């Protein structure tokens, strides 16, 4: 990742002295031995005069100069040689022009060519810029010098496959950064193939460049406004590349700095600028514009060299295979960043049955930041005893997808009335001993257990239930065997019994109501074969 200075450091260059070699290894820049290039800024404070300027890696044969317009600033990207030397050039009289160093790249994250490669578009409109001969695979972006002399012409840069049409005038020098695809290609727009020049300066090895810019335009003028990128920037991001572009043909003032920096170079933006700053605490960067017609887009972030890592899903609720889930219970889980890569909240999709929910849907809410999001998805109530399928997908900010989680859980059971069974004495039985306890079974149906406290047994005028000394039971909520003692019945007494019970979920069993007849006095017993007799009423 590039190193940003707390405040940008000026490099004095004598105007009219041709290519002035500056050694940036000493104070105040102190570029280390592994520095390969700088993030620079050219400022021309003159109110009305444009000056030709140039920059090149020391040892380069490039001899290109172009204008830095009056009252304007130009971010640029330029290599330094192994001794951290750079060649800078200000045309004669350009005392109002100053080169600044905002920061530098080391050999871990960037390469700058000694001599630039011309990639000037030969057709108007968007055309492919093929850098595959210069940039190795696995690189993420390309540094350009995008120039156009003193006539305005339309120009633009975008990552291959992007839909952005961020095209506007350019004049003079413009340092640019564009994302490249796996084939090391990007697209450039030229409004005038004879004046618009595009030079490949170097390439970025680590970091992330968005496919399309993220519009983060501020809403105030002439004051620094912090732009909070915590929801977009990978947690390890240390710097951000912003692209400023007006929506009209006017050159507006722009300034950009890291939060906490006192830099305040507030000059005109002609008309594109790809400007890099360190990200401050909370992933913020400060931007000031003179007019709301100047838009700001996030191009990408500088990152340490990290391996894209999928988000880690934890805290899943309802869990895999869980049962008895409330029909209105939301789906919630936590996605945590791994290996320094952040979670891309926009990549999170939660498919509940056939409906897919994602950020922006009313049912989808989240808390946290790219380090860790806790996501909650509400949904229309499920049915009871429904097996609900949920599919969760998410990717890291570096577009590493996690393994799809496809699982099911089951909602709460449908209340099912228990069954009353195995009555002893049996309904209608006769010759029942006068002290025979009333026994029966209660069986749960469909998993909805029996609520033992709901069982009531009415024998004659008395009602017995759990807790009464006469009431005893064995078994579990899936099946109880219940026995109720009682005061002795009379001889040949017709006893009426009513039994009620409910399931745990409150479904009542069909009331069992029956009678029995106790035995008679033994003296009444008749002898003989079993027989059927008819009697007149």
């Amino acid at each position, binding site marked *: 990742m590039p190193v940003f200075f707390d405040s940008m450091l000026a490099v004095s260059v004598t105007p009219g002295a041709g290519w002035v070699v500056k050694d940036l290894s000493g104070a105040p820049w102190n570029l280390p031995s592994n520095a390969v290039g700088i993030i620079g800024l050219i400022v021309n404070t003159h109110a009305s005069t444009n000056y030709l300027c140039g920059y090149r890696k020391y040892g380069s044969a490039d001899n290109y100069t172009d204008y830095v317009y009056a009252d304007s600033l130009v971010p640029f990207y330029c290599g330094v040689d192994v001794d951290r030397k750079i060649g800078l050039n200000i045309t004669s009289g350009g005392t109002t022009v100053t080169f600044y160093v905002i920061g530098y790249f080391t050999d871990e994250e960037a390469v700058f060519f000694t001599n630039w490669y011309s990639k000037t578009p030969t057709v108007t409109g968007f055309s492919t810029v093929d850098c595959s001969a210069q940039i190795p695979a696995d690189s993420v972006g390309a540094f350009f010098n995008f120039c156009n002399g003193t006539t305005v012409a339309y120009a633009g840069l975008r990552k291959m496959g992007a839909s952005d049409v961020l095209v506007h005038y350019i004049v003079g020098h413009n340092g640019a950064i564009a994302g490249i695809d796996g084939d090391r290609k990007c697209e450039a727009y030229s409004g005038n193939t004879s004046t618009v020049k595009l030079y490949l300066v170097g390439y970025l090895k680590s970091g992330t460049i968005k496919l399309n810019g993220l519009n983060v335009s501020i809403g105030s003028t002439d004051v620094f406004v912090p732009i909070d990128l915590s929801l977009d920037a990978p947690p390890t991001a240390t710097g951000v590349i912003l692209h400023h572009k007006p929506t009209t043909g006017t050159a507006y003032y722009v300034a950009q700095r890291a939060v906490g920096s006192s830099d305040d170079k507030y000059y005109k933006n002609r008309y594109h600028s790809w400007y890099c700053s360190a990200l401050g605490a909370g992933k913020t960067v400060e931007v000031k514009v003179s007019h709301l017609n100047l838009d700001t887009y996030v191009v990408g972030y500088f990152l340490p060299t990290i391996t894209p890592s999928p988000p880690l899903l934890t805290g899943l609720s309802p869990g895999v295979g869980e049962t008895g889930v409330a029909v209105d219970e939301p789906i919630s889980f936590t996605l945590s960043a791994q290996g320094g890569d952040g979670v891309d909240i926009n990549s999170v999709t939660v498919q509940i049955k056939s409906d897919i929910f994602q950020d922006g849907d009313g049912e989808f809410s989240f808390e946290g930041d790219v380090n860790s999001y806790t996501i909650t998805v509400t949904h229309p109530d499920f049915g009871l005893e429904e097996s609900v399928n949920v599919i969760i997908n998410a990717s890291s900010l570096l577009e590493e997808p996690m393994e799809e989680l496809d699982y099911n859980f089951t909602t709460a059971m449908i209340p099912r009335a228990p069954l009353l069974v195995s009555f002893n004495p049996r309904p209608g039985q*006769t010759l029942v001993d006068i002290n025979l306890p009333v026994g029966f079974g209660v069986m749960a149906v469909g998993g909805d257990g029996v609520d033992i406290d709901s069982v009531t047994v009415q024998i004659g005028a008395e009602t017995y239930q759990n807790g009464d000394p006469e009431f005893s039971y064995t078994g579990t909520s899936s099946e109880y065997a219940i026995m109720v003692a009682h005061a002795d019945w009379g001889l040949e007494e017709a006893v009426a019994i009513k039994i009620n019970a409910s399931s745990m979920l409150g479904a009542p069993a069909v009331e069992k109501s029956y009678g029995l*007849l106790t035995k*008679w006095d033994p003296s*009444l017993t008749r002898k003989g074969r079993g*027989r059927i*007799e*008819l*009697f007149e009423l």
Partner: protein
Amino acid sequence: MSYDLSVLTIQENWVRQGVARYTADLELWYGRYMELPRADDVQLVVVAGDSVRRGSDVVENGYFKVRIGGSGAYVPMYADTILHFGGMYPHTKKLIGFELLVPEGAATKGYVMFELQFIIKIARLWGQYPWGMGIYGSGSGVHDFHPNKVFYRAYVFDQALWSVLQVGIAASPTYRGEDKQW
């Protein structure tokens, strides 16, 4: 009422063809004041002889009907009809009612009698599994007690005989009019 005497014969006089004759409901008891096993089923079949007088015409045509429980439909009893009373504990009763409706012009007339046979079925335990579940036979494993028999006897008038009878009735000093015959 009295349980001193059980009904052995049901006698219905003055039964007229085309007019249903209902017997007042009777109590059917199984094992009254007897300590017996539970009857798994009590069945009723109507057994007729091979002559009209012995009820062959009645059972062939289902003129005789029975109902259980004091309400509901009367079930026509054919020769092969088995009416199930269901299981009964000893010393329990069910109501039983009869209907005889011989249509006009039927062969059945004059004295006709047939037998009501009540059969007690008790399943006999023929085997036992180690965990104690009783297995009950439904065929040869069922005890049939000797059927209890009750005779049903009726005197049925056809239209011709009734006309003769009506003349006599109308001439009777106790005759109270056409609509007061029964």
